[in-house]
């Protein structure tokens, strides 16, 4: 399958590639294939009954729905933050820039207890949100808030380099031909960053649908209401219902792979568009 395209003077191709494929199979591919093997022991009717049970559907709706809402909100604010970091200068910018990756570096359990403390009814932010009628912890809203925290760096870090790459001379040319700022934005800048927004959105979405640690503390975990899909998998495992856990996991895995394909397609689309212009 992996064939060298032309002879190289550098040694070690077969050794390094051989080890890569061996270790990849041992650690990732063989263990993951267990999901398919285990699920194949179920009849399709049983599989369908598990993944369409009301409790499962509610868990999917929460995990996928909250991930979608959070990633959608992050598109706008992530773009705005990337814009500010790429184009403006202000005091403390370097520290702000470095801290964007904080949610990515912080262990999810730490994020989970910090967010729950922050948004609970007597928390620093929660006390205000509860006063205006927003139940910001142990609810759908809480899950969305946690996923906003987790997903933000994915959008900012995908869009920021693309914004920096846009040639200022193109904007100057448009401006000297009489285009206003809004016109330049909608005709030049927005089309250039659109593929990166799609990529960033699907990266954030893929990461947040399976998120566990940062969400499980704030979610409330009421079956059928505020129970996320990964928690339902754990519950099934604790009841020794391995087939049930595996079937629910397989659906999530397939959605993740579809998103990965979407990301690759967006990048291919972007490179094709650059190639054409």
């Amino acid at each position, binding site marked *: 399958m992996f*064939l*060298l395209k*032309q002879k*190289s*003077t*550098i*040694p*070690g*191709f077969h*050794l*390094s590639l051989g080890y*890569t*494929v061996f270790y*990849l199979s041992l*650690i*990732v591919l063989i263990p*993951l294939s*267990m999901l398919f*093997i285990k699920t194949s022991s179920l009849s399709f009717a049983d599989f369908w009954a598990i993944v369409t049970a009301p409790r499962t559907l509610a868990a999917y709706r929460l995990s996928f729905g909250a991930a979608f809402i959070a990633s959608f909100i992050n598109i706008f604010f992530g773009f*705005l*933050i990337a*814009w*500010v970091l790429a184009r*403006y200068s202000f005091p403390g910018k*370097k520290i*702000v820039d470095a*801290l964007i*990756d*904080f949610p990515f*570096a*912080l*262990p*999810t*359990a*730490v994020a989970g*207890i*910090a967010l729950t*403390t*922050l948004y609970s009814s007597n928390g620093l932010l929660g006390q205000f949100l509860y006063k205006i009628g927003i139940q910001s912890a142990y609810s759908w809203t809480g899950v969305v808030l946690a996923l*906003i*925290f987790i997903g933000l760096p994915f959008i900012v870090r995908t869009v920021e380099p693309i914004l920096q790459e846009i040639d200022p001379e193109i*904007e*100057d040319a448009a*401006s*000297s031909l009489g285009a206003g700022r809004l016109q330049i934005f909608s005709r030049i800048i927005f089309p250039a960053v659109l593929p990166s927004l799609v990529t960033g959105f699907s990266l954030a979405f893929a*990461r947040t649908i*399976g998120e*566990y*640690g940062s969400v499980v*503390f704030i979610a409330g975990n009421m079956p059928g209401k505020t129970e996320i899909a*990964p928690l339902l*998998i*754990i519950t099934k495992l604790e009841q*020794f219902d*391995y087939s049930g856990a*595996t079937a629910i*996991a397989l659906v999530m*895995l397939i959605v*993740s792979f579809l*998103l990965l394909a979407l990301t690759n397609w967006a990048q291919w689309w972007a490179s094709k568009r650059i190639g054409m212009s």
Partner: protein
Amino acid sequence: MSSLARRTESPIVRRSLIGIALLYLVLFIFMPLFIVFATALEKGIVYYLHSLADVDTIAAIKLTVITALIAVPLNLVFGVAASWAIAKFDFRGKNFLLTLIDVPLSVSPVISGLIFVLLFGLQGVFGHWIRDHGWRIIFAPPAIIIATIFVTFPMVARELIPVMKAQGNDEEEAAITLGAGGWKTFWYITLPNVKWGLLYGVILCNARAMGEFGAVSVVSGHIRGYTNTLPLQIEILYNDYSFTAAFAAASLLAFLALFTLVIKSLVEFRFRAELKAVRKQGH
């Protein structure tokens, strides 16, 4: 109108955009960071240190360090091999291989734990075989280590591949032509060139290994003092309403995250300088 003025927005627009962006960051990113340290220290430094010295917390720290000491070197060796194959050679199926390497990143942590229960658990494929040999993998440290290896699998490779690609093959080809062997070329030419990227990859991999929660939670069995890593210990303390102790333990991992970000900024700064120098030489 100067070209700069044409290219940017009016000061009012600019300032309000910066303001909105910063407000969003303060609310969603800086506040959680602040909460961790504020809660950890709310009963004073003595209480803070005392809760860190708890027997179970120290056992959890030990297991976390051991896990990272095994998982990180294994993924480091893999990362170097994968980067060498992918960055130095052009072969069919390369993009497919890159996609496969990233797979653990798009798998839910809980699923990452589940697959090892399916392999090594009592109902699993190797379950009876492992029991007949008198070994324990699931609900014991080995499963924690294996799940951590899976979760942190791509971390070094992802950081190293772009850096090695950017260096090109010219120096290695020159060394080989002059008679250096493959290993010698790697140690004296490639490694010094990519050491900063490698360092960041290792530190990121380590931060992930020490902080993994979901996957480890599924395979651990939560046996206090035996199969609890630091993140699992944080969960137990929190669910016992020992909030200050939970946040004290959490602050250690938050420090680790901040340290990782500092190294990342240093590496980026270092590369920016190097790239500029390369460009200047080109002119």
